[in-house]
Protein backbone atom coordinates (compact mmCIF):
# COMPACT_ATOMS: atom_id res chain seq x y z
CA UNK A 1 0.00 0.00 0.00
CA UNK A 2 1.46 3.33 -1.04
CA UNK A 3 0.53 6.29 1.07
CA UNK A 4 0.65 9.95 0.18
CA UNK A 5 2.49 12.26 2.56
CA UNK A 6 -0.75 13.66 3.88
CA UNK A 7 -2.18 10.20 4.53
CA UNK A 8 1.00 9.26 6.39
CA UNK A 9 0.60 12.41 8.49
CA UNK A 10 -3.02 11.55 9.22
CA UNK A 11 -2.07 8.01 10.28
CA UNK A 12 0.61 9.47 12.55
CA UNK A 13 -1.99 11.83 13.96
CA UNK A 14 -4.31 8.89 14.67
CA UNK A 15 -1.50 7.09 16.51
CA UNK A 16 -0.49 10.18 18.48
CA UNK A 17 -4.04 11.07 19.49
CA UNK A 18 -4.90 7.53 20.67
CA UNK A 19 -6.83 6.44 22.68
CA UNK A 20 -9.14 9.49 22.24
CA UNK A 21 -8.45 9.84 18.55
CA UNK A 22 -11.39 11.83 17.27
CA UNK A 23 -11.17 14.52 14.60
CA UNK A 24 -10.00 17.47 16.71
CA UNK A 25 -6.87 15.92 18.31
CA UNK A 26 -5.97 14.32 14.96
CA UNK A 27 -6.48 17.70 13.24
CA UNK A 28 -4.21 19.43 15.77
CA UNK A 29 -1.53 16.75 15.44
CA UNK A 30 -1.57 16.91 11.65
CA UNK A 31 -1.48 20.73 11.73
CA UNK A 32 1.66 20.57 13.88
CA UNK A 33 3.27 17.96 11.63
CA UNK A 34 2.55 19.76 8.37
CA UNK A 35 5.71 21.28 6.92
CA UNK A 36 3.89 24.35 5.57
CA UNK A 37 2.13 26.65 8.01
CA UNK A 38 -0.90 26.98 5.75
CA UNK A 39 -4.30 26.55 7.38
CA UNK A 40 -5.48 22.96 7.14
CA UNK A 41 -9.14 22.59 6.10
CA UNK A 42 -11.09 20.21 8.30
CA UNK A 43 -12.81 18.80 5.21
CA UNK A 44 -9.47 17.60 3.84
CA UNK A 45 -8.84 15.64 7.03
CA UNK A 46 -12.31 14.05 6.96
CA UNK A 47 -11.91 13.04 3.32
CA UNK A 48 -8.50 11.49 4.07
CA UNK A 49 -9.88 9.62 7.08
CA UNK A 50 -12.80 8.29 5.03
CA UNK A 51 -10.38 7.15 2.35
CA UNK A 52 -8.08 5.44 4.85
CA UNK A 53 -11.07 3.69 6.40
CA UNK A 54 -12.26 2.53 2.99
CA UNK A 55 -8.78 1.09 2.36
CA UNK A 56 -8.82 -0.70 5.74
CA UNK A 57 -5.96 1.34 7.22
CA UNK A 58 -8.04 2.81 10.03
CA UNK A 59 -11.30 1.79 11.62
CA UNK A 60 -13.84 4.08 13.22
CA UNK A 61 -16.71 3.85 15.66
CA UNK A 62 -19.33 6.34 16.76
CA UNK A 63 -19.61 6.92 20.50
CA UNK A 64 -22.93 6.99 22.31
CA UNK A 65 -24.28 10.57 22.53
CA UNK A 66 -25.05 10.22 26.24
CA UNK A 67 -21.36 9.55 26.96
CA UNK A 68 -20.26 12.82 25.35
CA UNK A 69 -20.17 16.17 27.17
CA UNK A 70 -22.53 17.99 24.78
CA UNK A 71 -24.80 15.07 23.96
CA UNK A 72 -23.59 14.55 20.40
CA UNK A 73 -21.87 11.40 19.21
CA UNK A 74 -18.23 11.51 18.14
CA UNK A 75 -16.35 9.35 15.67
CA UNK A 76 -13.26 7.74 17.17
CA UNK A 77 -10.51 6.39 14.92
CA UNK A 78 -8.06 3.59 15.47
CA UNK A 79 -5.21 2.44 13.26
CA UNK A 80 -5.37 -1.16 11.98
CA UNK A 81 -2.49 -3.60 11.50
CA UNK A 82 -2.49 -2.88 7.79
CA UNK A 83 -2.35 0.83 8.57
CA UNK A 84 0.70 0.43 10.84
CA UNK A 85 2.44 -1.65 8.20
CA UNK A 86 1.62 0.87 5.45
CA UNK A 87 2.93 3.73 7.59
CA UNK A 88 6.17 1.88 8.42
CA UNK A 89 6.66 1.08 4.72
CA UNK A 90 5.95 4.65 3.70
CA UNK A 91 8.52 5.98 6.16
CA UNK A 92 11.14 3.35 5.25
CA UNK A 93 10.69 3.37 1.48
CA UNK A 94 10.05 6.95 0.61
CA UNK A 95 11.56 8.83 3.53
CA UNK A 96 8.33 10.69 4.22
CA UNK A 97 9.47 11.24 7.79
CA UNK A 98 12.49 13.29 6.76
CA UNK A 99 10.73 16.60 7.01
CA UNK A 100 9.26 15.92 10.42
CA UNK A 101 11.23 14.41 13.30
CA UNK A 102 7.97 13.37 15.01
CA UNK A 103 6.86 11.38 11.98
CA UNK A 104 10.32 9.80 11.78
CA UNK A 105 10.02 8.82 15.43
CA UNK A 106 7.14 6.45 14.65
CA UNK A 107 9.53 4.28 12.72
Amino acid at each position, binding site marked *: MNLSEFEALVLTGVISAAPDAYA*VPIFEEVEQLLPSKKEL*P*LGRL*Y*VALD*RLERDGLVRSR*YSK*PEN*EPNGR*SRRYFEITGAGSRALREAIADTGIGQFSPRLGATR
Partner: protein
Amino acid sequence: MKRLIGGFFPAAAVIVALATIFAERWLPIPTSLQASYFLDLTAVAVTAMFGVAGALRQTKAVLDEFTTIRRRRADRAVPPINAEFILHLILSSEKCDDQVNSLEELYAKKRARLGSGRADIWYWKQVIGLVWRQLFRGRAKTAVVKLVCWALRICGMGTLADALTKAAAELTSAAPQPSNRRRP
Protein backbone atom coordinates in the same frame (compact mmCIF):
# COMPACT_ATOMS: atom_id res chain seq x y z
CA MET B 1 -42.44 42.04 35.37
CA LYS B 2 -41.11 44.89 33.26
CA ARG B 3 -43.42 43.83 30.47
CA LEU B 4 -46.35 43.88 32.89
CA ILE B 5 -45.45 47.38 34.07
CA GLY B 6 -44.91 48.48 30.51
CA GLY B 7 -48.35 47.16 29.60
CA PHE B 8 -49.95 48.64 32.73
CA PHE B 9 -49.15 52.27 32.00
CA PRO B 10 -50.79 52.55 28.59
CA ALA B 11 -53.80 50.65 29.95
CA ALA B 12 -54.01 53.02 32.92
CA ALA B 13 -53.82 55.98 30.55
CA VAL B 14 -56.78 54.66 28.54
CA ILE B 15 -58.79 54.04 31.72
CA VAL B 16 -58.11 57.58 32.99
CA ALA B 17 -59.11 59.05 29.63
CA LEU B 18 -62.35 57.04 29.57
CA ALA B 19 -63.10 57.96 33.21
CA THR B 20 -62.61 61.65 32.40
CA ILE B 21 -65.00 61.49 29.44
CA PHE B 22 -67.51 59.55 31.56
CA ALA B 23 -67.28 62.16 34.33
CA GLU B 24 -67.72 64.95 31.82
CA ARG B 25 -70.85 63.42 30.28
CA TRP B 26 -72.66 61.71 33.14
CA LEU B 27 -71.65 63.14 36.50
CA PRO B 28 -73.44 66.26 37.85
CA ILE B 29 -70.47 68.59 37.54
CA PRO B 30 -70.54 72.05 35.92
CA THR B 31 -70.41 71.51 32.20
CA SER B 32 -69.62 74.91 30.93
CA LEU B 33 -67.53 75.14 27.77
CA GLN B 34 -64.38 76.06 29.70
CA ALA B 35 -64.79 73.19 32.13
CA SER B 36 -65.32 70.77 29.23
CA TYR B 37 -62.14 71.96 27.52
CA PHE B 38 -60.27 71.73 30.78
CA LEU B 39 -61.37 68.10 31.28
CA ASP B 40 -60.51 67.19 27.70
CA LEU B 41 -57.05 68.74 27.97
CA THR B 42 -56.44 66.96 31.26
CA ALA B 43 -57.42 63.66 29.68
CA VAL B 44 -55.09 64.22 26.74
CA ALA B 45 -52.20 65.29 29.01
CA VAL B 46 -52.61 62.34 31.36
CA THR B 47 -52.88 59.92 28.44
CA ALA B 48 -49.77 61.32 26.80
CA MET B 49 -47.81 61.24 30.05
CA PHE B 50 -48.69 57.66 30.88
CA GLY B 51 -48.31 56.60 27.27
CA VAL B 52 -44.82 58.05 26.94
CA ALA B 53 -43.77 56.60 30.31
CA GLY B 54 -45.08 53.17 29.28
CA ALA B 55 -43.38 53.30 25.90
CA LEU B 56 -40.07 54.27 27.51
CA ARG B 57 -40.29 51.42 29.99
CA GLN B 58 -41.17 48.97 27.26
CA THR B 59 -38.23 50.12 25.14
CA LYS B 60 -35.87 49.81 28.09
CA ALA B 61 -37.14 46.27 28.78
CA VAL B 62 -36.55 45.22 25.16
CA LEU B 63 -33.06 46.74 25.12
CA ASP B 64 -32.20 45.01 28.42
CA GLU B 65 -33.34 41.69 26.99
CA PHE B 66 -31.32 42.23 23.81
CA THR B 67 -28.19 43.05 25.84
CA THR B 68 -28.66 39.93 27.95
CA ILE B 69 -28.96 37.74 24.84
CA ARG B 70 -25.82 39.31 23.32
CA ARG B 71 -23.88 38.83 26.57
CA ARG B 72 -25.02 35.21 26.81
CA ARG B 73 -23.98 34.58 23.19
CA ALA B 74 -20.56 36.15 23.84
CA ASP B 75 -20.03 33.96 26.91
CA ARG B 76 -21.06 30.72 25.22
CA ALA B 77 -19.08 31.20 22.00
CA VAL B 78 -21.93 30.07 19.76
CA PRO B 79 -20.85 29.52 16.12
CA PRO B 80 -22.95 30.84 13.21
CA ILE B 81 -26.24 28.95 13.36
CA ASN B 82 -26.90 29.19 9.60
CA ALA B 83 -23.64 27.43 8.75
CA GLU B 84 -24.43 24.60 11.16
CA PHE B 85 -27.91 24.36 9.65
CA ILE B 86 -26.38 23.70 6.20
CA LEU B 87 -24.47 20.72 7.60
CA HIS B 88 -27.65 19.40 9.22
CA LEU B 89 -29.42 19.65 5.88
CA ILE B 90 -26.75 17.84 3.90
CA LEU B 91 -25.08 15.20 6.07
CA SER B 92 -26.44 12.13 7.83
CA SER B 93 -27.23 12.67 11.50
CA GLU B 94 -24.25 10.75 12.98
CA LYS B 95 -21.77 12.28 10.57
CA CYS B 96 -23.26 15.71 11.12
CA ASP B 97 -23.11 15.40 14.92
CA ASP B 98 -19.45 14.41 14.76
CA GLN B 99 -18.47 17.18 12.35
CA VAL B 100 -20.47 19.88 14.13
CA ASN B 101 -18.87 18.75 17.41
CA SER B 102 -15.39 19.08 15.95
CA LEU B 103 -16.17 22.42 14.33
CA GLU B 104 -17.57 23.81 17.59
CA GLU B 105 -14.54 22.69 19.57
CA LEU B 106 -12.13 24.24 17.07
CA TYR B 107 -14.34 27.35 16.77
CA ALA B 108 -14.13 28.00 20.52
CA LYS B 109 -10.32 27.85 20.33
CA LYS B 110 -10.20 30.08 17.24
CA ARG B 111 -12.57 32.56 18.86
CA ALA B 112 -10.40 32.84 21.94
CA ARG B 113 -7.37 33.46 19.73
CA LEU B 114 -8.77 35.54 16.84
CA GLY B 115 -12.01 37.10 18.09
CA SER B 116 -15.59 36.41 17.09
CA GLY B 117 -15.57 38.01 13.60
CA ARG B 118 -12.58 36.12 12.23
CA ALA B 119 -13.67 32.93 13.98
CA ASP B 120 -17.07 33.22 12.29
CA ILE B 121 -15.36 33.60 8.89
CA TRP B 122 -13.17 30.59 9.68
CA TYR B 123 -16.29 28.57 10.60
CA TRP B 124 -18.06 29.46 7.34
CA LYS B 125 -14.94 28.56 5.33
CA GLN B 126 -14.73 25.18 7.02
CA VAL B 127 -18.43 24.42 6.44
CA ILE B 128 -18.20 25.35 2.75
CA GLY B 129 -15.04 23.22 2.46
CA LEU B 130 -16.71 20.26 4.19
CA VAL B 131 -19.74 20.41 1.93
CA TRP B 132 -17.65 20.85 -1.21
CA ARG B 133 -15.17 18.08 -0.44
CA GLN B 134 -17.70 15.54 0.77
CA LEU B 135 -20.53 16.11 -1.63
CA PHE B 136 -19.68 17.93 -4.81
CA ARG B 137 -16.03 17.28 -5.61
CA GLY B 138 -16.45 13.92 -7.40
CA ARG B 139 -19.77 14.92 -8.87
CA ALA B 140 -18.35 18.18 -10.23
CA LYS B 141 -15.68 16.27 -12.16
CA THR B 142 -18.32 13.97 -13.66
CA ALA B 143 -20.48 16.96 -14.52
CA VAL B 144 -17.57 18.69 -16.30
CA VAL B 145 -16.87 15.54 -18.37
CA LYS B 146 -20.56 15.30 -19.31
CA LEU B 147 -20.66 18.97 -20.26
CA VAL B 148 -17.57 18.66 -22.48
CA CYS B 149 -19.02 15.53 -24.17
CA TRP B 150 -22.32 17.30 -24.76
CA ALA B 151 -20.47 20.26 -26.32
CA LEU B 152 -18.43 17.92 -28.54
CA ARG B 153 -21.59 16.14 -29.73
CA ILE B 154 -23.21 19.47 -30.59
CA CYS B 155 -20.13 20.37 -32.62
CA GLY B 156 -20.49 17.10 -34.54
CA MET B 157 -17.62 15.30 -32.82
CA GLY B 158 -19.65 12.41 -31.43
CA THR B 159 -16.84 9.89 -31.82
CA LEU B 160 -14.49 12.03 -29.76
CA ALA B 161 -17.22 12.51 -27.13
CA ASP B 162 -17.73 8.72 -26.93
CA ALA B 163 -13.99 8.18 -26.57
CA LEU B 164 -13.80 10.80 -23.82
CA THR B 165 -16.73 9.23 -21.94
CA LYS B 166 -15.12 5.81 -22.21
CA ALA B 167 -11.74 7.11 -21.06
CA ALA B 168 -13.30 8.92 -18.10
CA ALA B 169 -15.22 5.77 -17.08
CA GLU B 170 -12.07 3.66 -17.35
CA LEU B 171 -10.05 6.15 -15.34
CA THR B 172 -12.70 6.24 -12.63
CA SER B 173 -12.92 2.45 -12.37
CA ALA B 174 -9.17 1.87 -12.62
CA ALA B 175 -8.09 4.61 -10.26
CA PRO B 176 -10.47 5.09 -7.36
CA GLN B 177 -7.52 6.36 -5.31
CA PRO B 178 -6.88 10.10 -5.15
CA SER B 179 -4.37 11.62 -7.53
CA ASN B 180 -1.94 12.55 -4.75
CA ARG B 181 -1.37 8.91 -3.78
CA ARG B 182 2.02 7.61 -4.83
CA ARG B 183 2.11 4.95 -7.49
CA PRO B 184 4.40 1.96 -7.04
